[in-house]
């Protein structure tokens, strides 16, 4: 049994230790908001927070997680109230939406570490997240807006 701390809950899972965290989240724990896109850390659809840092969960064996808290899109807020989620709704960012959990997890980690991200910061933080619908312009605008909301300029 492997013990995990996911979205504030302690859970025990019976899985092969090399199983990527992504598949434990999706298939064992039923947290399907985290998506499978490439399996090689190339697309970012599987991004979650590990101790607050964005990681590609398809490349993290569950045995490497240890006691680091895992946050998925389902745990970002209970009611879509995280500033990034609010901004995403305000700008109607998603199209097909498949990449957006990963985009939101990357963006929320960015504004947590850089409350006023520059364009270059956004490029660096978001370059690992592919959106085939091409919502990049709205993502950029929504990240700026999320930073404002977080700063209290709602």
């Amino acid at each position, binding site marked *: 049994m492997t013990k995990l701390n996911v979205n504030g809950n302690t859970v025990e899972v019976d899985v092969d230790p090399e199983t990527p965290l992504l598949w434990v989240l999706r298939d064992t724990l039923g947290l*399907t908001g985290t998506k499978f896109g490439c399996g090689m850390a*190339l697309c970012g659809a599987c991004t979650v927070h590990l101790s607050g840092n964005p990681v590609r969960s398809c490349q993290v064996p569950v045995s490497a997680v240890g006691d680091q808290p895992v946050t998925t*899109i389902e745990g970002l807020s209970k009611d879509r109230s995280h500033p990034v989620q609010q901004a995403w709704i305000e700008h*109607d960012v998603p199209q097909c939406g498949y990449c957006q959990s990963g985009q939101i997890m990357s963006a929320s980690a960015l504004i947590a570490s850089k409350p006023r991200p520059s364009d270059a910061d956004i490029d660096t933080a978001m370059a690992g*997240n592919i959106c*085939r*619908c*091409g919502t990049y312009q709205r993502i950029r605008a929504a990240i700026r807006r999320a930073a404002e909301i977080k700063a209290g300029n709602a």
Partner: protein
Amino acid sequence: MSANLLVTRRQVLGGLVIAITLPACKQAPKSTGAATTFEPNAWLRIGSDNSITFFCDRAEMGQGVYTALPMLVAEELGVSLERIKVEFAPPGDQFINNLLGGQVTGGSTSVRDGWEKLRKAGATARHLLVAAAAEEWGVDARSCKVVDGVILSPQFKKLNFGEVAEAAAKLPVPKDVPLKPASQFTLIGKAHKRKDTPAKVDGSAIYGIDVKLPGMLYAALAQPPALGGSVKTFNDEKARAMPGVVAVVLTSSGVAVVADSWWRARKARDAEQIDWNAGPNGTLNDAKIAQTLRKGATGAGRVARNDGDAAAAIKGAARVVRADYELPLLAHATLEPQNCTADVRADGADIYVPTQVPQMAQAAAAKAAGLDPKQVRVHTTFLGGGFGRRLEVDFIPAAVELSKAVKKPVKLVWTREDDMTHDAYRPPAFDQAAGAFDEKGKLIAWNLHLTGPSITSRWFPAAVEKQVDPFAVEAAANYPYDVPNVHVDFRQQEIGIDVGYWRSVSHALNCFVAESFMDELAVAAKKNSYEFRKALLEKQPRYLKVLDLVVKESRFGYPYRGHFHGLAVMEGYGTYMAQVAEISLEGGKVRVRRVYCAADCGQQVNPDTVIAQIESSVIFGLSALMWGEINLQNGRVQQTNFDSYRVARMTDAPRIDSYVIESGEAPGGIGEPATALVAPAVCNAIYTATGRRLRSLPLSRHHLA
């Protein structure tokens, strides 16, 4: 739904649907809400609890039908958009797309097809509800009003839709309920937040890959590495011994492993030892395909347009310009890999699938299960991208065969590598253009000889038996410029592998050729690309308007220092569009800085979605232009994942400025056209910057030092 409703539906639809036949399969929508009391047509259900459900008969793949289509209904029904709950409709002939002849989401047709019939569906329902209320009150229905789902009598008595739903269901359905004039629209044409956004920012939206059924097993599939290959022999001893493996099954698509988790299924799949037959494409490669197309091009094609006598005009011309263009195969690369969940039982089956073609999915599943289509229920989920990939049903039979074999629900998920190497690729092209000037420098002839495989000949062979494939000559047959002699033909030349519809289909091929070559002719005529086009579009007001608008907004020809402009114009899906690309060159590489796009798509339904689709299409076109190519060696696709098949990322994304004209014309499609103009606009800018004319893509093949 009872058989009576079919009659009702016919009455509602009147002459709109040319041929409604009894559905091959009638499937009740999956809604488990309140007691159903009123279903005035296939799209609407109004419950006695005052719930309003819209059955969305098109796939939501990002293009916004989940919002735009209920807007059409709500406008006439007389409710706010928020009141309407959306569910995906099952397959059924009542949902046939009249522009495509099947229940198909594609061709930027959803709003155009639904424009009248969905407003009529809303208007008819409202008419019946008001009539029921008026009858109860004993007043003239014409004296009643509807305000957000509440019917008001002249004496200000109130009844909500739910209260009269049961009575409305008993009234005869009127034939022709008048529709509001555009001037009275309160929803259509005003920006609305997408109804699917909340579920897409909290992870709760369910895509095919997220489906989970009780007792479900997971599957991974090994497919023949060469396109069109097959399994010769396989040894599953090692795979079977791996933990969690339930079965190893030879399917019609390859050898699959069924296990208690997808990760275990995939690990065991990789441990299978399979000998493959390479099949008919065992020696196919890019050079061979190029050669096949060039050879094919020596023959005449089917004529798509013939004004005057282009051949004679070219022969007698003072000056002739000729150029050949080549375009590569492309993958769709939807971010959600192909997948299907099947639950096959002796008496029937359910499939859960992200598909653009639920009827074809149903037929494919029925065939694989050995069932009648009537026995197969299709549950369409959200699609993690479509772009034409999910018009194919190639990923469905194996899932069905597996569920049948293990007698349990099975979710088959392809890896990214499976997906990249087993697509129905965008066809390649070898196209020859010629333009001729008279001695005064007037353009007197335009000839476009297109060569490539035909997608439609696989999909609808009967449709192209005697005529040119209409999906091969888009943005070519409708050549808009005022030239007396125009000839466009398409020479069908198959290449051995299946090709598929890819966002904007042949527009993306032909607009690149036509609009690049227009710039070549402008250069030959020593004219600026804007003035050259403008002079030839004087009789085309809608083209002219978008051209002038984009030129003005972009300050075409006057970019920042070190930046360069290129222009392209096109009509596609009833939408008129002009783009200006602004580029710079950095170390021999092109950087697209900004794209200006002017569009006249007629009446808009949700204007914010119109802009979002322009932005989306530009990025999609940009990926293809910059890096998109699928290469074959021994019949095997060389690109496997997003490292070898590069697509645009945040760092590549230009600023996109959209300018949408309110023309009052009928709605045009907006999900695709902007895809096609990016390549010619950028290549025209590259010519301005470097004097080099690029006649093949992607740009990554070219070094622009």
